[in-house]
């Protein structure tokens, strides 16, 4: 983590400290926290790991997936930004990397409060706004709204999540092998958000979920606290965001849904700063981050209720549109007629346009899951129009959407338009799109040569190797299909041991012989060696 984020986050902690009334060690830990500390920690893990012959997850991750130089570059920002993304290796390279700025917008040092206002701005519902006004009008500490207006979350999971890979190894390969597995757990890191990030970076999502439960206990929002009144702070809500996000990432959708239900659409007054005038003065805005709002709106979709998500996402979109309109009309984001400088206004405008695009992406994904392809195509078309810089990327996605529904002519015309915009030589994405077009036309030989051409440009691209393997199967070359995937895994195991690639390989193993089971066990051994976590679905596939 870069220096830039630390002050802000530690600031959260100081505030929390007051809110919770204790735990000085935590804030101490964080105020001291710096890059140096973090790298020291990682170094320690490396050295302990190196003493053992077996590579462990943590070490591998720190080697193979180094943090980008500038981790402050905001992902949200880049969607709305005019940087050309196709050439860059990492998302974070895309953001402006000037270390002086706060939000990655311009080389100007943004005033802290300015950036905060912009980032946290939100328009609550009228009912909530009324309560917040009452709150501000009454003497500090004298206004107590009904409990139904409060957010009272608590951890639902009764027990800490275990190591599901280890359990699978014990069942399939024996206790001895399982005992050799070494992974990072919630006990191996500092009991704070730095430790949490370390777990997330190592891919130890289940351990990270366990750590969030422990940290939430500090706020009185731990196990069994659901329904009990507690105070919220930026940090506590960030912990909840991280926890719910990780539950989604590990596909524990039912738990995610149960634990997040209490948050509703994050419209209760106690998730706004104005609710705590004694702590935040007249600071406006939402304590819950925008990412959290988006996550909660998307959640029903993961649980198979995409229609509900669609409604929530459109609600989100309408608020974002209102914010953009307020900015256009010369007001603050939330409609407050406060003066803001032109530079700040345009930065804010860009931030919210970027967020709008991100919400639109989610709506597109949601309508795809509902098979409302017209809506998805319509929105994608709108994005193509407004984002000229990324037009070719979006058009290529639109082309693939056409392919998905079987509209070959439509797909071809999108890909041809991309060709006109890009000019020059075909790049990897275009070659792959062309390959997919051939797949749709049942021309697997031609598809293979398209993918092969792309593979020459980027020999280690696992997606391309996978697609070549699929084409080989459809051409009756099962053994070759298998060997491509096997060699891809042997070259880059941590990266290649991916759910979709493994599903493909397992399908091929099932076809090849009756020895598929042994080969799947070998894959499990690889996962155990390189991955801290694996989706349950793929583990079940490997047992089978």
């Amino acid at each position, binding site marked *: 983590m870069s220096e830039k984020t630390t002050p802000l986050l530690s600031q959260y902690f100081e505030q929390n400290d007051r809110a919770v009334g204790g735990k000085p060690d935590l804030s101490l830990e964080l105020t001291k926290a710096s890059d140096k500390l973090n790298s020291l920690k990682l170094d320690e893990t490396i050295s302990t790991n190196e003493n053992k012959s077996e590579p462990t997850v943590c070490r591998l991750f720190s080697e193979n997936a180094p943090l980008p130089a500038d981790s402050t570059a905001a992902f*949200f920002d880049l969607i709305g930004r005019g940087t050309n993304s196709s050439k860059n290796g990492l998302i974070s390279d895309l953001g402006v990397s000037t270390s002086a700025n706060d939000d990655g917008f311009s080389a100007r040092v943004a005033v802290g409060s300015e950036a905060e206002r912009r980032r946290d701005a939100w328009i609550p519902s009228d009912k909530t706004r009324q309560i917040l006004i009452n709150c501000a009008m009454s003497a500090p500490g004298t206004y107590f709204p009904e409990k139904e207006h409060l957010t009272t979350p608590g951890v639902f999971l009764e027990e800490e999540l275990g190591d599901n890979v280890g359990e699978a190894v014990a069942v399939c390969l024996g206790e001895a092998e399982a005992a050799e597995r070494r992974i990072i757990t919630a006990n191996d890191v500092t009991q704070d958000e730095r430790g949490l990030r370390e777990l997330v970076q190592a891919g130890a999502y289940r351990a990270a979920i366990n750590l969030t439960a422990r940290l939430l206990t500090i706020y009185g929002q731990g196990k069994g606290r659901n329904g009990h009144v507690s105070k919220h702070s930026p940090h506590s809500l960030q912990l909840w965001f*991280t926890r719910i996000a990780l539950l989604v990432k590990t596909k524990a959708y039912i738990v995610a849904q149960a634990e997040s239900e209490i948050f509703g659409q994050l419209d209760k007054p106690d998730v706004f700063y104005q609710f705590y005038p004694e702590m935040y003065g007249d600071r406006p805005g939402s304590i819950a981050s925008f990412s959290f709002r988006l996550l909660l709106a998307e959640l029903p979709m993961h649980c198979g209720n995409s229609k509900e998500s669609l409604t929530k996402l459109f609600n989100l979109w309408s608020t974002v549109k209102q914010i953009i309109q307020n900015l256009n009309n010369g007001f603050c984001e939330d409609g407050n007629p406060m003066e803001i400088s032109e530079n700040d206004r345009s930065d804010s405008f860009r931030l919210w346009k970027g967020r709008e695009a991100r919400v639109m992406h989610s709506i597109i994904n949601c309508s795809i899951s509902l098979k409302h392809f017209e809506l998805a195509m319509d929105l994608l078309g709108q994005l193509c129009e407004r984002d000229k810089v990324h037009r070719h990327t979006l058009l290529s996605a639109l082309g693939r959407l056409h392919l998905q529904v079987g509209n070959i002519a439509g797909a071809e015309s999108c890909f041809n338009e991309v060709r006109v915009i890009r000019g020059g030589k075909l790049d990897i994405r275009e070659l792959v799109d062309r390959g997919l077009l051939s797949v749709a036309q*049942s021309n697997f030989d031609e598809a293979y040569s398209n993918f092969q051409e792309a593979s020459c440009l980027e020999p280690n691209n696992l*997606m391309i190797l996978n697609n070549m393997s699929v084409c080989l199967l459809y051409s009756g070359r*099962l053994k070759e299909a298998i060997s491509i995937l096997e060699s891809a895994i042997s070259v880059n195991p941590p990266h290649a041991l991916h759910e979709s690639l493994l599903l493909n390989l397992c399908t091929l193993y099932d076809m090849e012989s009756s020895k598929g089971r042994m080969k799947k066990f070998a894959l499990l051994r690889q996962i155990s060696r390189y991955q801290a976590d694996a989706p349950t679905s793929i583990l079940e596939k490997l047992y089978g």
Partner: protein
Amino acid sequence: METEEHLLALKVMRLTRPTLSSPLPLTCDSKDLPGNLFNNALHQDLTSVQGSETLCCGQFLLLPQSPVNIYLGETFSSYICVFSETQQVVKSIYVKVDLQTSSQKLSLSSNPPTAELAPDETINIIIHHEVKEIGTHILVCEVSYNNAMGIPSTFRKFFKIQVLKPLDVKTKFYNAENDDCYLEAQVQNITTEPICLEKVALDASQNYDVTSLNSTNEGEHIFGPTMLVHPQSICQFLYCLTPNKTIKDSRNLSGPTNIGKLDIVWRSNLGEKGRLQTSQLQRMGPEYGDIRLLIHELPNFVVLEEPFTFKCELINNCERTVDLMLYFENMEGIAWCGISGRKLDPLSPHSVRILEFKAVPLIPGLNTLSGIKLLDTFLKRTYTYNELGQIFVVIDDQKISKSP
């Protein structure tokens, strides 16, 4: 089935289209607790596409993971893999693949025998078959081989496939005032997934010329560029069929006539193609006698109480010259302007004559032209023509100039 142990085994996988896999787009702001870790993980995911990581339109091909229905008109494709279960060399392997439908047995593969199969080798066969029957199909795979001692052995495996009906096509005919006929075809998607209609065309029989009425004046399809049909949804197409000029005797068009076939091509998931042709569509043409009277020219709008003219085609379909008397009968809202009981000039065989009529509209609104009576003086047969056509009677003549 057989419990006997065999040296070889066989596996079959239906080759439906792969799907495009995408990551779960989980992102956050750089100021959120996870910093850029979620974004980086998303970016490094093999299934994400650079530049559109947060869109679920990936490039990663995922093999079919769950069984998919097969529909009439689609191509049934399967991968058949024969592999060895032994360390011995197996000889003279012959794999025969047949498809048993309710009515026939089709041979799908007749590969030459494989001389030898080493323990690690496989025999790979891909079969394609366009399904042309609804109902249960059974894929029969028979493997015969000789073991190391040269003793022949055979085993069979059966796979059941249920072929479903993909589309429901309903047709309706409308006979126009002239000899044209309109065909309305409703195509309903009765599969469980959205489909994309790639082609819907009417291949007319030789008696008719067909005009498709499914495009706008700009040449765009009325359903837009993507003819996407959701499950249970219906698309309606309209065609105009004009009798071929080569048909001299229009009596050939009366009664049941073949007008042609609808040819439909659709695609679904990642280009999975299906094609159906309806059986010959039959139209019940109106009964055409020896004499026919058809509207030739008729104004759409006429002005109240102002005389108007219209033209009719009088056709003699028979082999003799016909002498006719023309009578007018009273009709509601329109008064005839002309002589009733007039003798017409003799009409020679297979000839056409244009008759002009004059009338005065008396009631505004939509009026039907009826009441023309022809008497064949030789056969003493009367032909009455009611509902020949319709006119719209307006009051203000300025409205006429405005209307097309």
